[in-house]
């Protein structure tokens, strides 16, 4: 029997008084494309950030590829992992941010090679060849030596996807990857993501692009107030929602 790539169990996360996540449990299976939808503040971005350990969970646990994230169980207690170990665990995930967060002082190519060279310590000619191949895959071969400021938003986000892929992650996390883009640039980023989904990558995508969710997602998860309200096949959740809150959300966004 296959095991889930990500197993989330009773995860809670608070920011002061605000409960961003309250007891969320979820499995993500290898090769699955999951879209997380919901209003802002519903906890979907926080969930991604917990998986990538940009935020530490307050309660519960997340297992990635069978390994408990961020903490180690010993003598009935949880001990936080060192920064080095957390860094090693992060390498299994690739993250794409809403605001791209490319390194502005490095070219597109250097953005992609930075992690493999500096963190993984791999050989530079091999890394460079792979980076050029990734740039080709996201349709930006001509922009290898361009700085982020010389690229459009859509091009920057495609470089950011290539940068995340360069680390050869098992899981790709997308945090509203098209929300900061002009409408005419959304399509080129979604096309790259579709191609990635087709290649068998496991993906968790926080998005407001319901068209993309309907077309690409194996599963759609609707979250509200830090909890999962409804989940299932895209056609079911988006086409025939059972929960009142899902219905209200969908009628508000469409």
């Amino acid at each position, binding site marked *: 029997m296959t095991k889930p790539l990500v197993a989330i169990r009773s995860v809670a996360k608070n920011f002061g008084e605000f409960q961003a996540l309250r007891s969320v449990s979820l499995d993500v299976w290898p090769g699955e494309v999951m879209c997380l939808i919901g209003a802002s503040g519903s906890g979907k971005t926080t969930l991604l950030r917990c998986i990538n350990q940009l935020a530490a969970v307050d309660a519960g646990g997340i297992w990635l590829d069978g390994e408990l994230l961020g903490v180690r169980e010993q003598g009935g207690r949880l001990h936080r992992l060192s*920064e*080095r170990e957390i*860094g090693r665990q*992060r390498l299994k995930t690739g*993250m794409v941010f809403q605001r791209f*967060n490319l*390194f*502005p*002082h490095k070219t597109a190519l250097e953005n992609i090679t930075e992690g493999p060279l500096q963190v993984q310590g791999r050989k530079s000619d091999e890394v460079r060849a792979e980076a050029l191949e990734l740039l080709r895959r996201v349709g930006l071969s001509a922009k290898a030596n361009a700085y982020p*400021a010389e690229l459009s938003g859509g091009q920057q986000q495609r470089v950011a996807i290539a940068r995340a892929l360069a680390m050869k992650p098992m899981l790709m996390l997308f945090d509203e990857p098209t929300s900061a883009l002009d409408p005419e640039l959304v399509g080129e980023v979604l096309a790259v993501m579709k191609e990635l989904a087709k290649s068998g990558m496991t993906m968790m995508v926080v998005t407001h692009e319901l068209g993309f969710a309907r077309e690409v997602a194996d599963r759609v998860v609707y979250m509200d107030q830090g909890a999962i309200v409804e989940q299932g096949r895209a056609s079911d959740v988006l086409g025939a929602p059972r929960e009142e809150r899902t219905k209200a959300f969908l009628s508000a966004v469409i």
Partner: protein
Amino acid sequence: MKPAPALAEGFPDLSGMQIAREPHWFRWLSAALIVLVLAAIARAFANGQIEWSYVSRFLTAKVILEGIVNTMVMAVLAMALGIFLGIVVAVMRLSPNPVLKTVAAGYTWLFRGTPLILQLLLWFNLALVFPTIGIPGLWSARAVDVMTPFLAALLGLGINQGAYTSEVMRAGMLSVDIGQYEAAQAIGMGRLRALRRIVLPQAMRVVIPPLGNEFIGMVKATSLASVIQYPELLHNAENIYYANSRVIELLIVAGLWYLLVVSILTPLQMLLERRFARGTLRLAR
């Protein structure tokens, strides 16, 4: 397609006209006035009790040239020490570790809170507190032999500069978007590597103008080391006028050299700014 509606009357076509040049009488007048005042000051100095021949003779005297070399050596070394300490302390200050944070804040408090000249005198007179210094059992020496004017000046100026530079560096690091730290973490970088590879290079763009300012301040602050017998420019000029009593002449000599050095530093700063402006379209021009 319908023709465009007729435009309203009463708004003539200005496209052939140019913007007229204004005479700016007041600018001419004020410029002339300033030139007159400057000429009067220059005339006063030329006819005053100043032997200009001494100025030109001592401007390139060996002792003065040695002084300017010592000034520059000290300014560069002390600034390098200051920047090194400044980066370390700024990183400590922004660390989540409360011990490091407190130590960094204490350092800044202590060395920013006392006059530089007092710190120089303390370093120079360290032998009064610790007659011998060293590592027990390994090495020791008399403090008066170790704490030369050079070392006292370097420690005094560099450590003091570090306290100021740490705040400049901290401001620079805070100016880098939090998303840059997160993106660096997301590709597996630890805190220090993210700082070195991603955050500091971007912070440099912001901190170079204030650091240039600090360095110019440092060139002049080295003159304080004259009180602890470090043979920099002002100290050597003073030694000459103690002998020949040409006080103003030699102070003018020193002043001209400081002005020259600072004038050379400004374009150098521009070059550095351009180097660190990589990737930004708004290049330092």
